[in-house]
């Protein structure tokens, strides 16, 4: 429970809560960006430099911008009001997810203490692992992303052709 951890945790949770409760949708997206930055800080606190920096690069630099573009292009500034039914459903779903996560975290708790002396994952090791042990998942993910990119281009091109 060191001071950096507390500050980062407050920033992360505060950003997430703000993202849920703010009125304007774009403010929510910006609060989400703050939450992601807090998460990146937590990764860096755990000495996982690569993950932390890539979190900033990918999430803050691309995902949040994607969300913001989506909001702007569909121009929904006001959120629809919540009814009682949706509130109950939301509580139910969040309770189930919380129970699942709590079970997952506490069930592996016995092994947590022993892994204190984990070696520092240097960049070279991550790169080596990606290229040797995990090369198949890497290539599959690459293929998936390429397919998504080509799909987006094809959809956009279809619309242009229809407009003609």
């Amino acid at each position: 429970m060191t001071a950096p951890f507390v500050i980062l945790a407050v920033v992360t949770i505060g950003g997430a809560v703000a993202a849920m409760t703010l009125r304007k949708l774009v403010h929510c997206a910006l609060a989400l960006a703050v939450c992601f930055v807090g998460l990146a800080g937590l990764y860096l606190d755990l000495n996982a430099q690569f993950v932390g920096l890539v979190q900033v690069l990918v999430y803050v630099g691309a995902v949040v911008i994607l969300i913001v573009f989506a909001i702007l292009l569909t121009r929904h500034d006001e959120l629809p009001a919540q009814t009682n039914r949706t509130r109950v459903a939301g509580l139910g779903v969040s309770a189930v997810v919380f129970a699942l996560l709590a079970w997952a975290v506490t069930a592996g708790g016995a092994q947590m203490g022993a892994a204190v002396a984990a070696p520092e994952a240097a960049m070279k090791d991550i790169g080596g692992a990606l290229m040797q042990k995990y090369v198949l998942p890497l290539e599959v993910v690459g293929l998936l992303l390429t397919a998504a990119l080509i799909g987006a281009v094809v959809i956009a091109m279809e619309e242009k052709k229809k407009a003609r």
Partner: protein
Amino acid sequence: MTQGLDQIFVTFQHWAVAHSPAAVQPAVSIVLPVAGILILFPSLFAITTVLERKGLARIQNRYGPNRVGPYGWLQPVADAVKSLTKEDIVPRTADKLVHFLAPVLLVTVVFLEYAVIPVGRNMVLADMNSGVLFFFAAGAATEMSVFMAGWSSRNKYSLLGAMRAVAQMISYEAPLILSSIAVVMAAGSLSTVTIVEKQAGYSGFWPHWYVLTPWGLAGFVLFAIAMTAESNRSPFDLPEGESEIIAGYFTEYSGFKFALFFLGEYLEMFAVSGMAVTLFLGGWAAPFSFLTWIPSWIWFLGKVMTLIAVFIWVRGTLPRLRMDQLMNFAWKFMLPMTLMVIFSAGLWKFLPSGVLRWLICAAPIALLYVVLGRVLQSERRIEKRVYRYAE
């Protein structure tokens, strides 16, 4: 003697730390380099504004500012006084918090980028293992500030300018990062200090800079172009083009906030130039082995200022690119070229050194350049205009 001059700032820092009470020693050892950065780069910014105006003016057959000091060199002082005393106008329906935070965020993130640039031998603020990655992660956060500025102004044209600016910055981030990957591959590390040290050797009197290899030259040119686009600088300044959309995403900013945006953009330009110098031009290393007696930080600053001069030169020469031309250039030309640069850098590592290696590595890049040039220019056919009538 030259060793002393070279390390003069480091020895000053050690002296200051030794002579301060034990409780504040860590703080002093961090605050001093930070203060150094905070003093050096904004002063460089001030000098660059005059240099740019006078340089552009001379290119355009006129004098630049020449009234304020001797030959106009005190113009930044006048500009600073003006921007501090101007009324700070915020539109009535603007989002006040976001409007205020956007320039603050930009300047903060850009100053963060300076932490990993080695200004001289042993003179880097944070010797991180993944310095290059940190640099680009901070660069990604500047796009958020541009978007915040455009959106909070409640001005359709600002928003349009902001969206175009963000699209441009994201598109050019890909070639920027990919061309630096070639350097990381050759140096074997993401740490900026290691990259510069790998380039600080000499074979004969010829330096080991990466720009003197075929993939390094192509990578440097691509990095420089992507860098101009990332800082929204001419010829890629459509989002903030004065004749197009007034000032684009910072139309509604006046006074000090505008000055902060300006400061943030120029500082980002210096930071990315510093990174280009670090990655390709050998950082603080001297160009020839008989010139190593000149202190390292002077070499670094000289190289950065040369790059800035080249940017000013390019700004005065080229017309602005249209948005679709810009995007075509990034995705259709620069991205394939950077992939070929990475491939060529890989070849370089595995071939024995010599003239043959040079030719083999230069060939794919040159070939792709010519092919892409022909293909992309033939796409611009002039078609007969087709009219579509309303039904």
